[in-house]
């Protein structure tokens, strides 16, 4: 498994579960965190868990890769480039929804959470397309 593929798996596994729980709480139990401070705290906890899981996984990968001559080559860059390009469209769609459409009817945490959802979706699409690019190159082209 290539270095970029390992990082993509790590990013997906560290990000998806924690943000799934976060959005499930936000959508399923909107009154669970009534105050602004509690909501900020919840977001901070989720972001911290994500960061700790990702950084610790990254350190483990780096330790195992020590001494390998080439970690990334033209194929990795091509796969990453295509995935990033597709994820950009997801992100820009999310930002248009949040910045152009939603302000007419919504405000506050709904905007914050939708923006966060757009970012998480874009990242998920990027890493998923990287993994697809390694396994089924024709689908990613």
């Amino acid at each position: 498994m290539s270095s970029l593929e390992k990082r993509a798996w790590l990013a997906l596994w560290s990000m998806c579960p924690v943000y799934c729980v976060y959005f499930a709480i936000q959508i399923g139990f909107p009154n669970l965190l009534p105050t602004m401070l509690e909501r900020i705290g919840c977001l901070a906890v989720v972001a911290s868990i994500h960061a700790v899981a990702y950084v610790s996984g990254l350190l483990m990968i780096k330790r195992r890769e020590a001494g390998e001559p080439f970690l990334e080559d033209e194929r990795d860059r091509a796969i990453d480039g295509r995935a990033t390009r597709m994820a950009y469209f997801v992100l820009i769609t999310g930002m248009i929804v949040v910045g152009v459409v939603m302000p007419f009817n919504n405000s506050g945490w709904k905007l914050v959470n939708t923006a966060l959802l757009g970012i998480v979706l874009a990242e998920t699409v990027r890493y998923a397309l990287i993994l697809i690019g390694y396994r089924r190159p024709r689908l990613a082209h």
Partner: protein
Amino acid sequence: MSNEVRLLRFLAQDMTQAELGKRVGLTRQTIAAIEQGRYSPSLDVAFRIAHLFGKRVDEVFHWQPGGAEGNVAANSDAG
């Protein structure tokens, strides 16, 4: 696009994928993908591989019409 990389590696004293990758600046995984026909290398890498085995590019890589659309896209991205 098919190629003779695996055969040439075998003929070059059973050179490993990692060793070939190291000598042409690719990862072992990319050499494996090239051998399996899952990735078409850039022209630069194709020349480097051919030069390493003392062959011409067309002796190592064989292009077949009608199946290269994806590879063309991959190579244009790889720059």
